[in-house]
């Protein structure tokens, strides 16, 4: 599916990943524009139901949730809980048969603009391979 342009929702924690993405922008780094970013105060705020809501949405083919590295959380413990939530959610999605790579998670800190660009490239590439997401539509 070469010409398929996926639409990916990026749920970013405000203090690190959002700042990292902003830094990627200010340092003029190039990364695919398929990602639409939603800002949340902390990766701990991400409720698995948001991921499910993204699935229901027509035209959305993948979800990327990104937060601070464990230990760096602006709210100290937000991403520790998030880490457990994402681990369980990832196993559940896989168990239900949703292809690996549809939902991806990453830790991107405020200073890692370059890593953010690489993460987005990888996610877009994976989802291009997987093709449009027709489940739950």
């Amino acid at each position, binding site marked *: 599916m070469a010409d398929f342009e996926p639409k990916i929702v990026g749920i970013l924690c405000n203090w690190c990943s959002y700042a990292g993405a902003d830094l990627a922008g200010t340092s003029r780094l190039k990364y695919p524009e398929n990602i639409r970013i939603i800002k949340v105060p902390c990766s701990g705020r991400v409720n*698995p*139901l948001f991921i*499910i*809501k993204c*699935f*229901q949405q027509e035209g959305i083919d993948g979800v990327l949730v990104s937060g601070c590295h*464990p*230990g760096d959380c602006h709210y100290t*413990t937000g991403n*520790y*809980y998030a*880490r*457990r*939530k*994402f*681990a*369980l*959610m*990832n*196993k*559940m*999605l*896989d*168990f*239900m*048969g*949703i*292809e*690996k790579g549809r939902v*991806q*998670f*990453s*830790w991107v800190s405020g200073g890692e603009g370059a890593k953010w660009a690489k*993460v987005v490239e*990888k996610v877009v590439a994976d989802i291009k391979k997987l093709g449009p997401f027709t*489940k*739950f*539509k």
Partner: protein
Amino acid sequence: MIEDLKEKAKELLTSKKVDVVIGYEAGTYKDYASPSFAKTAKDVDRFVWNKNCVNNLAIYITKAKGKVGIIAKGCDVKSIIGIIQENQINREDVVIIGIACDGVEIDGEKADKCNFCDVHTPKIYDILIGDKIESKESSQDKYKEVAEIENKSPEERWKYWKDTLSKCIRCYACRQVCPLCYCDKCFVDTTVPQWIPMSVNEDNNMMFHMIRAYHMASRCIGCGECQRACPMNIPLNILSKKMTKEVEEMFGYTPGVDIEAKPAIQDFNKKEDPDKEFIM
């Protein structure tokens, strides 16, 4: 065993230690037992105890007012521990009449949970009926069905769950029968925001069951009531067992054991790294 149980229940009621004792009475369909509420010593005479007392009576604790006595098997006690952990009732308001149970039956054959039960004698109780039964290590693999599905390919898994869950009629018996589903307003009923569309099709059903299993992670003790209550015979145990297995493997936490402990989903451990293989 049954006389001892009746006598203890009557004694609790007459001494006003509890306002009601919840137990089992003979059912009226097939050989099911059915929950029974004894407010006076006379009501206790209806109580029975046999292989068919499958219901997990802990669900009635979250609805009861005042002091409650409850006849509880080992697995029911695990649910009571969960309920107390989550502040739905204080330990002093519950008088647990523990029963040594060596397995119950559903429609004649041994319930799945009893094959690998580790609490033939309840973990905590105020009164114990019957003599202690040692729990031996079970030979069968608790997560057999889970492994079966895990070995399938994603497409097969998706197809399996799609077909299974398309039978669901959203009657929410699985939710109403579960002792730990005590929310006044479930996420499925909220319209602001509309988490899950109300219409009944396989996609919405899947979403409901996925999130309910996720909400049960590190809380479900595997009493199997949801699968028994489901009119459409959907194997819901597999979902909750999968979550229990993951919580055990990743966070080393088993629910229903320690009243003071916090369920794994509410806790964290700085040193663990369950995220190493899937978070970039």
